[in-house]
């Protein structure tokens, strides 16, 4: 049986359409309301409250905690300061990505790692001979994401921690109306926002005070459908949707290296040995064969395709998560893995794997679209990601 998150007693009564979905063995809301529109706009216009408890969370402590993480992930954990959060990926020995997530440095020897998939075995395998404790705190730690332009003003009313001083990808211990929490300035929306980490027994009182303080500022409980649109606008990829874990891939071509996932910036080749380093050094020399890019489907082209059958363009208001061929001059040069209509940007956007030769922003490509049961190609252009990157995200 699937589990409920600690917020279930609050989220369940909000479910107008009972639109639950699965996430890492839990059920969470696709959308609370029948349509996800308002939940999406809350992310961009006021504030959205998301239950992100199903994330895998590991507490890694001990004198060798830093060494373990530096062995496993591609970024340089040793350079991080207490209170810093790193977004990173980790690879197998062949330099192919297993998963991506965040590492929060809670203390000199204390880290919290989040992951989309279970990784405890992989961590243990790499901890041989190290003085480190790895604890799976996925169930005992609940998490809420408060995302949107009003996130700060809502949260600041409830805590003494100075949130203006809390920079992007930093965290602080705090109390929210007496409830001990960790607040990190992170999220999966590409907007101003925070994630709040709390011991599961305190989950419900935390939810209640946030709703109470947030209501005058338009706080809106928000499900995964809305988040999916926001993360696409932010150009953020999703495991098992946009790429396949090297641990799950059945054939070589299903795997991706960090360079192929637009994560070259995160690869710290200057640090000591880590899993996959040799392969990544080699790939850095050779250059990646693939790139992970943004695509903008051109409206006029799409409109023409639909006008030919007497219809206005049908736009994906719910993000799709399938593999769609991408062409250049009639040749298939890649595939898009997720896409949606951006209600904010008024653009049809997608994330795609394409051959490196056609990955430069502005390159004209074509993406397959199905118009009235027939396969057509709509003109598209490689676009810089994030598609949407408001100043408030970092300000």
């Amino acid at each position, binding site marked *: 049986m699937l589990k409920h998150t600690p917020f279930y007693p609050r989220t369940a009564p909000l479910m107008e359409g009972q639109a639950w979905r699965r996430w890492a063995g839990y059920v969470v809301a696709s959308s609370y*309301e*029948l*349509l996800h*529109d*308002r939940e999406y*706009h809350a992310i*961009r*216009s*006021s504030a959205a409250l998301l239950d992100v408890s199903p994330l895998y969370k590991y507490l890694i402590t001990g004198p060798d905690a830093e060494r373990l993480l530096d062995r496993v992930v591609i970024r340089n954990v040793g350079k991080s300061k207490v209170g810093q959060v790193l977004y990173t990926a980790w690879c197998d020995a062949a330099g192919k990505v297993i998963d991506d997530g965040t590492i929060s440095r809670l203390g000199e020897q204390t880290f919290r790692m989040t992951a989309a998939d279970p990784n405890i075995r992989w961590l243990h395998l790499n901890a041989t001979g190290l003085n480190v404790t790895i604890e799976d705190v996925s169930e005992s730690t609940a998490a809420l994401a408060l995302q949107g332009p*009003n996130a700060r003003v809502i949260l600041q009313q409830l805590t003494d921690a100075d949130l203006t001083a809390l920079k992007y990808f930093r965290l602080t211990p705090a109390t929210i109306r007496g409830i001990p929490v960790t607040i990190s300035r992170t999220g999966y929306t590409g907007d101003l926002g925070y994630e709040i980490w709390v011991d599961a027994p305190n989950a419900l009182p935390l939810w209640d005070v946030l709703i109470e303080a947030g209501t*005058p*500022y*338009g706080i809106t409980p928000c499900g995964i459908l809305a988040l999916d649109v926001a993360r696409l606008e932010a150009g953020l990829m999703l495991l098992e949707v946009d790429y396949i874990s090297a641990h799950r891939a059945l054939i070589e071509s299903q795997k991706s290296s960090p360079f192929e996932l637009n994560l070259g910036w995160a690869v710290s080749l200057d640090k000591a040995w880590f899993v996959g380093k040799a392969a990544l050094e080699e790939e850095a020399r050779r250059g990646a064969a693939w790139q992970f890019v943004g695509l903008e489907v051109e*409206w006029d082209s799409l409109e023409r395709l639909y006008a030919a059958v*007497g219809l*206005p*363009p*049908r*736009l994906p*208001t719910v993000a799709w998560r399938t593999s769609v061929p991408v062409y250049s001059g009639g040749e298939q040069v890649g595939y898009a893995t997720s896409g949606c*209509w951006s*209600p*904010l*940007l*008024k*653009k049809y956007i997608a994330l795609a794997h394409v051959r490196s030769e056609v990955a430069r922003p502005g390159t004209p490509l074509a993406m397959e679209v199905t118009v009235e049961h027939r396969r057509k190609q709509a003109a598209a252009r490689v676009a810089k990601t994030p598609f949407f990157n408001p100043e408030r995200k970092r300000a």
Partner: protein
Amino acid sequence: MLKKATRYDAIVIGGGHNGLVNAAYLARAGKRVLVLERRPRVGGAAVTEEVFPGFKFSMFSYVVSLLRPEIIRDLDLPGHGLHILPLESTVTPMLNGDYLAAWADHDATRRELVRHSPRDAEAYDEYGRLMHHMARAVKPIISMVPPDPTSLSPRDLLGLLRLGKHFRGLGAEQFHALFKLMTMSSADFLDEWFETDVLKATKSASGIIGTFLGPRSPGTAYVLLHHYMGEIDGVFRAWGFAKGGTGSVSEAIASAARNFGAEIHTDAPVARVLVKGGRATGVALENGEEIRARVVVSGLDPRRTFLQLVEPNELPGEFVDDIKRFKFRGSSGKVNLALGALPNFTCMPGNGPHLRGAVSISPNLEYVERAYDDAKYGEFSRQPYMDVVIPSLIDPGMAPPGKHVMSIFVQYAPYNLNGGWTDAKREAFGDAVIDTIAQFAPNIRSCILHRQVLTPADIERITGLSEGNIFQGELALHQLFFLRPAPSWAKYRTPVRGFYQCGSGTHPGGGIMGASGRLAALAVLEDGV
């Protein structure tokens, strides 16, 4: 402030949304453009103002309906801050304490309709499909320069031919429906489809907005179509509430225009257009300053454009006559309320999703028609039709935390009120509005912190819109397409060479659409400035 030596390619008079769109397109084409706005801020009737401290209002125009998608794209308005939030539902309280609701979810709306009439619930989808086809039939017209059916120029003939082909392609059934839409009253048209009175009343309301007509007046059915054009773009979501109010739409367009190099000057009222040898050469400001330009574009309404900015002897007498006869007849007012608490509607007590959408005060057809009867004889409606929204529930930034703003569009309030508008009449009008709302939400009076009442006379005084008509001239069939604003001069050009018109008094006009501004810019560019 202005360097007199500077010579502009184009001066746009009036920084309303169409003037700004016009300037943006001209600047985008590389022209040196100057926009002159009389008021301290741009936007015209699409302005957001902090009328009471902490309470912001879309003072006049309050929803974005038909802003053209091509304009949003061409000017990258989202990149300049445009964010349209969904306005999802409409609830109509009834006199017997019941209500009719239309929700964003199709099934939810259907179930609600079944409650009133299972037959109407089924007709509703069929009606929607017909209107979809009708809107698609009419939509191309919005983005085209209206061809003149009396002209023999190849351009006009070609345009007419295309249009003819387009209409022939509709098929007999749809063509007949279109003809009915063009000629019938909205009440009669809706009678053919539905039996639920409150449904017909609420739908018919969209056929009378901005006109001096009632739901039983012929010609109003056509205006229903405008709503469905928004529906076609529905998935595109150009329909809704602009974050920050409608002023933020104007600000986004202004920002795009500046980005393309246009200069925008506020507090710069234009006295007249300078004409030499039948050609516009620039403008004279009210402070006497003269600025030269190769062309001048007016975003003001036809009356101001031709009877105020230009000397009558520069224009043909017949044309002046036509413009004098162009009907404005402002018929609507606006009441803006600052609220300390939310209204409690008897039909749906408490806070709920209905408050985040529109509340339509149109309990039955007779109610709306009677509201018109008052206006016909020179009085404001004692029981007016109203469209009520609470923007702060959609966009909390419009009011201080926990407080709210309410925007009430009110019809009818005739510009030519018996005895004229006075302060006392304005307050009496405001009282009638509040009294009517109180019938449906009895606690409304105790919620009100501040009240702003705007009559057509106020709308004219503040925005300059003649007779307070929100569309720069009635959206009546005899004032549309190749007749807007006058026969032979419906293509943005005027009898004065180098002088153009770009306001919503030209085709296609009406609403925050921007189409007039864009098409006028294309006309200017085509003439080779």
